[in-house]
């Protein structure tokens, strides 16, 4: 036990480990906030779709040799999020078909561009890092850390500021519109923060595992809690705990960070599912 603490305290002397924990916790916080809204609106799959779009955008940014890829990846992902979420009711191709089409197209274009115009000789390494995170959270530059912190705090601020409106469009968009709420604007806002969270989460777990950060905390907590507010608060706490535990375990065991975090989320989901079953039985 002492040796674990000694090893951990030694590892925390490295700045990149501290950066990873700060950004990891903030990303987990943002994604879980949004997860509750997306799960309840039955848009769980959108995180996955947008993460694929972000992969494609990263391929474009690599081909263009951009030093800071976020300046292109974020706006492109936001644009696709707006098309999928905001304009979905008026689009000819709707729902899961639109998400599937956009995600596979972006993946194909991204992979093609990475091969045609690689940033390094290790293309498989670049693809592996983008898809599964690998060690990207441990190789953040201070600029990226500040950018992630700024974006995360913006997402939290928007969610807190518009909590009541987001609550309204989550449960009954039609009723919210009938009461005079500008639902199109708030859907646009949700779309923009979903895109921001997806781009942030890519550094933590990679684009293929981003959905886990969004859906698992909400789904786990919904096994035992019912009210919107309690689910939001508990899923934030749970997500932050799981992300921190996942990062620490991966550092101690030398395992891939993204996959370790997601496995922690899965274990917690199973635990909460059991608790939910237990609660259901005792109520009868």
């Amino acid at each position: 036990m002492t040796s674990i603490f000694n090893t951990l305290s030694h590892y925390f002397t490295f700045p990149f480990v501290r950066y990873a924990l700060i950004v990891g916790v903030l990303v987990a916080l943002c994604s879980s906030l949004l997860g509750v809204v997306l799960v309840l609106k039955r848009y769980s799959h959108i995180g996955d779709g947008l993460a694929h779009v972000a992969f494609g955008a990263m391929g474009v940014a690599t081909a263009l040799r951009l030093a800071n890829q976020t300046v292109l990846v974020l706006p492109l992902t936001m644009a696709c999020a707006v098309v999928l979420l905001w304009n979905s009711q008026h689009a000819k191709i709707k729902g899961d078909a639109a998400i599937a089409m956009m995600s596979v197209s972006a993946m194909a274009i991204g992979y093609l561009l990475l091969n045609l115009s690689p940033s390094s000789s290790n293309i498989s390494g670049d693809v592996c890092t983008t898809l599964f995170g690998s060690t990207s959270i441990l190789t953040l530059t201070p600029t990226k850390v500040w950018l992630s912190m700024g974006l995360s705090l913006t997402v939290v601020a928007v969610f807190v500021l518009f909590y009541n409106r987001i609550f309204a469009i989550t449960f009954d968009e039609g009723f919210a519109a009938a009461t005079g709420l500008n639902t199109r604007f708030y859907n646009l806002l949700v779309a923009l923060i979903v895109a921001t969270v997806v781009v942030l989460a890519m550094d933590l777990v990679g684009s293929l595992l981003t959905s886990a950060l969004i859906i698992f905390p909400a789904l786990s907590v919904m096994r035992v809690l019912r009210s919107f507010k309690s689910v939001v608060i508990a899923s934030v706490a749970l997500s932050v705990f799981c992300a921190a535990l996942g990062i620490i375990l991966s550092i101690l065991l030398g395992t891939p960070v993204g996959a370790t975090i997601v496995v922690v989320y899965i274990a917690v989901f199973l635990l909460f599912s059991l608790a939910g079953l237990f609660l259901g039985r005792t109520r009868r």
Partner: protein
Amino acid sequence: MKRLLLMLGLALFLSACGAGDKPAATQAPEAEAPAPTSDVVQMDFSGLNDTMAYAQMFNVVNNPKEYVGTTVKIKGTYVPIPDPTREGLTYHFLVVADITACCEIGVEFFLDGYRYPQDYPTQFSQVELTGRFEMASVGGQEHISLKADSMKVLKVREN
């Protein structure tokens, strides 16, 4: 109330999981606990696991000026690369990879008094180098390199 108590119970149980009661979680760090740094070696990579060693090496290569002059001990894969334009000239690299070996990063090293190929192991052998980071210049471009004092072959790769 029951839900609240259950949530509290789950939180406590999860904290216990994180405390490392699994044998694998406790054994791995003990086996890989960083060796105490001596006066000579300021940064010991050899005690870090693969993921941590890769991340630290990435930081060294991307922030070279912060590490110039630092004495280090590093484990990795030996990769010789012959210069296609100058016959007989070979560059020697130490490649550090993460646990999945999908991310890898290399640093050029120089060993005084070693002749290639007789004094070097076969390519892709596992070696441990002790030395000091220095800046080297190739074609006017500066990059960090390792001025090694010694090389220990850990595992020879059979050709």
